[in-house]
């Protein structure tokens, strides 16, 4: 079925209320910490208080003697049991063709700690309190070493060496694009706009802290890992094949209700391995739940780029070439997808919505004595959008062109469009996205609003951002050629029950996205049955055949497409059964609104009767067809999907205090086919909130000298709260994706990708009359006030 026919089906485009809500609203959700098990023990990790130190000795004697303690494991035990380090899932190749530096990532420190929060020992006791008390008795003698927390220090000659295997703290030097062509284009430029930009480091802070329970059964020699995770099958694959050397069929990974992920729960973490490994050693179930301060210290962080870029333009403001140098902080160790974020998911997006003929991007990735950095909502694409949309607005200002005008002069108008940085956009309509956004934002009324603000002694600014992202990760062969060590397809199983109700098993994972509703709508629409008759199962390797999980806005476009393929098979088989029942050829059978009919006759049978016949095959072509109606499909996308949009933000700034308030925020997005507008709207709201969070308040700060995390709690790290945000104005302009059967593009990350530059461009627009030309996120009152004071000097 094509996306055009699909989008016209009942349920598609309908805001069905969520099937999952009742359990969450009545306290019946079951998150990892809620799972009730017998034979349970609790573990607490002893973590490094130093950013960089050699471990001289660990004395566990008094801790072991403490009440309730069952065992304490340290790095030596891991080495003895030959448990490998955590693997990196993406191999990046240097410009010179050599592979990146890939130092070991042990689950418990092997002689050295490399960031505050690094895992030193695992203390297991009967109760959580006993484990906590004993952990305080573990004596670790450290030889503290000089540390580096900032890439600008890490890259310096003579900087403290973090890994012996990574000379100069360098992980890789990677590039994309035609450098010679870019250099040539710069020679003929009428104008060059330059920018130095920092993309502030963020801490994801899903509200449910990470948690894991390791279980082992001697009777069956099987492990079960309950874990707050976005992709249980990948977790199992990494855990078994790469770290513990176990056969996959002996390990079941269950990611039950998961309280938000935003990327931070994609990865295999040390704690997950430790509880699984130790469960067998102790023959006990072992639970670990992160305190919020552990989450701050040890969840993978996001962003943290330092970039210099230059845009070459002709005299009419047309972009000729774009040249980018980025230094990316990867933290102390390579987290699962860390290496792909500042490369494949960043540099390939730097053409944006524009017909820039040449783009060249060079990325250096560095180790520092900080927590690992990996994907956080948007992952690389927010960094790309922030850079590009900042330099585009700046170029406009330098040339006397309005923010919309410089964008309009450069928009790509013909599709498909091949960018100079590998991607081919299938569809889009950037001109209309801008036009609709300008109407919705009432841009015409801006001058009057600015005058009103001025009367109150406030500065008002307007900021634009026109983003594009690559979602629906990803064609496996393309990803493989780019260094991915895993496939990126998805799997779906559609099980039709004898009475015509359906259970779907999907490899996508919902941790807030509402798949149990959206996916049920897809199936109900296709099969012409009530949405109540469809249930979605996810998050359990013991029930779902296989899966690659949820990240990169891939669930509906890849996971949904796998379900569509499985339904194609269901439909094809059901037609054969219907043909038999109605004594016709299956090529003459039509299927519409839940009924199979013989074309040109009034003969018809409902879907439920076909289902029953498949399982009670008394009148059935048993010689040609198996009984049953249960199909599995794998779908590997042929291209990325390309959501896009134009966001317009207005801020009001009090120049006396520096206080900055987002007064209005407008987002017009192209997500292709929209299945549940209510859920899509919720995704955009949440994304924008995180983007405004990055732009105005969130900032992960390590002390540059000592590597101590200075923003280690909700008291220090500013999370957006209800009174920090306005209501958002949303609109859509859809050009369906041509490469998947639903026409969907994905909507999970757009808000976080598109919004930060819109906010900061608005801040700069507001401050322009005072002479402020540059500004780094987050626009806290102090920073804004300082920028104003500096401009006055």
């Amino acid at each position, binding site marked *: 079925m094509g996306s055009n026919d699909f989008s016209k089906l009942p349920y598609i485009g309908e805001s069905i209320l969520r099937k999952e809500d009742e359990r969450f609203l009545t306290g019946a*959700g079951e998150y990892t910490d809620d799972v009730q098990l017998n034979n349970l023990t609790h573990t607490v990790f002893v973590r490094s208080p130093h950013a960089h130190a050699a471990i001289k000795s660990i004395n566990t004697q008094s801790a072991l003697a403490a009440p309730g303690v069952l065992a304490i494991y340290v790095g030596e035990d891991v080495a003895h049991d030959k448990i490998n380090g955590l693997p990196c899932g993406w191999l990046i190749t240097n410009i010179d063709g050599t592979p990146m530096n890939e130092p070991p990532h042990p689950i418990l420190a092997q002689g050295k700690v490399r960031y505050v929060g690094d895992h030193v020992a695992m203390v297991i006791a009967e109760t959580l309190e006993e484990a906590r008390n004993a952990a305080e008795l573990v004596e670790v003698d450290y030889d503290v070493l000089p540390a580096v927390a900032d890439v600008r220090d890490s890259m310096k000659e003579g900087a403290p060496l973090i890994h012996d295997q990574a000379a100069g703290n360098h992980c890789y030097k990677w590039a994309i694009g035609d450098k010679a062509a870019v250099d040539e284009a710069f020679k003929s430029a009428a104008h060059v706009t330059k920018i130095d930009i920092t993309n502030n480091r963020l801490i994801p802070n899903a509200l449910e802290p990470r948690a894991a329970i390791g279980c082992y059964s001697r009777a069956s020699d099987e492990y079960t890992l309950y874990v707050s995770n976005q992709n249980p099958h990948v977790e199992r694959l990494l855990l078994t094949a790469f770290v513990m050397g176990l056969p996959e069929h002996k390990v079941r990974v269950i990611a039950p209700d998961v309280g938000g992920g935003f990327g931070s729960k994609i990865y295999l973490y040390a704690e997950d391995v430790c509880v699984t490994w130790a469960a067998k050693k102790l023959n006990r179930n072992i639970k670990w739940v992160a305190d919020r301060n552990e989450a701050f210290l040890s969840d993978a962080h996001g962003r943290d780029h330092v970039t210099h870029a230059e845009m070459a333009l002709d005299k009419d403001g047309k972009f000729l070439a774009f040249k980018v140098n980025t230094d990316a902080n990867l933290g102390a160790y390579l987290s699962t997808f860390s290496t792909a974020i500042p490369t494949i998911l960043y540099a390939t997006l730097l053409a944006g919505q524009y017909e820039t003929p040449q783009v060249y991007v060079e990325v250096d990735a560095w180790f520092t004595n900080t927590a690992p950095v990996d994907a956080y909502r948007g992952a690389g694409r927010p960094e790309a959008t922030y850079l590009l949309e900042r330099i585009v607005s700046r170029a406009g200002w330098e040339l006397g062109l309005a923010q919309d005008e410089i964008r309009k002069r450069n928009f790509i108008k013909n599709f498909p469009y091949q960018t100079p940085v590998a991607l081919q956009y299938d569809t889009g309509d950037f001109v209309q996205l801008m036009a609709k956004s300008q109407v919705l934002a009432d841009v015409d009324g801006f001058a009057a609003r600015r005058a009103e603000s001025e009367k109150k002694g406030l500065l008002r600014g307007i900021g634009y951002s026109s983003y594009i992202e690559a979602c629906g990760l990803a064609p496996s062969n393309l990803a493989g050629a780019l260094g991915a060590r895993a496939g990126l397809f998805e799997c779906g199983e559609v099980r039709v029950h004898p009475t015509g109700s359906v259970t779907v098993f999907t490899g996508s994972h919902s941790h807030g996205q509402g798949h149990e509703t959206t996916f049920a709508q897809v199936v109900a629409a296709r099969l012409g049955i009530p949405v109540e008759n469809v249930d979605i199962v996810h998050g359990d390797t013991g029930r779902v055949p296989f899966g690659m999980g949820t990240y990169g806005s891939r669930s509906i476009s890849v996971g949904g497409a796998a379900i569509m393929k499985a339904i194609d098979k269901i439909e094809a088989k059901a037609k054969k059964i219907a043909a038999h029942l109605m004594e016709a050829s299956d090529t003459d059978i039509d299927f519409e609104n839940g009924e199979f009919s013989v074309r040109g006759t009034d003969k018809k049978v409902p879907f439920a009767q076909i289902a029953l016949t498949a399982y009670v095959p008394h009148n059935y072509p048993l010689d040609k067809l198996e009984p049953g109606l249960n199909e599995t499909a794998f779908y590997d996308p042929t291209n990325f999907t390309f959501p896009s949009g134009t966001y317009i933000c207005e801020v009001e700034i009090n120049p006396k205090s520096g206080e900055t308030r987002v007064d209005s925020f407008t987002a017009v997005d192209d997500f292709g086919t929209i299945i549940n507008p209510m859920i899509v709207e919720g995704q955009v709201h949440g994304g924008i909130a995180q983007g405004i969070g990055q732009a105005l308040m969130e900032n992960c700060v390590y002390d540059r000298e000592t590597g101590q995390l200075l923003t280690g709690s*909700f008291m220090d790290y500013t999370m957006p709260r209800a009174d920090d945000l306005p209501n958002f104005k949303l609109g859509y302009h859809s050009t369906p994706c041509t490469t998947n059967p639903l026409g969907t593009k994905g909507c999970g990350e757009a808000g976080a990708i598109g919004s930060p530059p819109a906010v900061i461009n608005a801040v700069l627009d507001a401050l322009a009359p005072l002479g402020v030309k540059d500004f780094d996120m987050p626009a806290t009152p102090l920073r804004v006030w300082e920028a104003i004071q500096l401009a006055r000097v």
Partner: protein
Amino acid sequence: MKTEISVNGKAVTIEAADNTLLVTAIREHLHLTGTHVGCDTAQCGACTVMIDGNSVKSCNMLLAQAAGSSITTIEGVAAADGTMHPMQQAFKDCHGLQCGFCTPGMVMSSLDLATKHPDATELEIRDLLEGNICRCTGYQNIVKAVQQGAAHMKA
């Protein structure tokens, strides 16, 4: 020590160490796992319960301090037959939740808010919800839900 409290209309006696937090008693002793722990600094509000008609962060007080009081957790908000409270229904109707982790605390705070400030404006609601963090929704639909829930509670 033994502490007598009433939880969701039922009298219970909990035998626990003196330093047991109220949230620990609710989750670990009573196995009412709808009350969540999202932080360790009383900032996020995921553990909010009602104590004698006031919303309280249950991570921030000892079980002993609750002795003799009447506590409602998220499990006690719906009617006995399972029909959701108007505030719970409003959160569903307005898509005021995504991952669901902050939701129990958010609903408890909203119940308090709607009872004490039945006519709160949008801006007042945003201000009054300042003690509860949601990372998913951007708050807009939560505010809508509180408005709808409060209106239905008055009716």
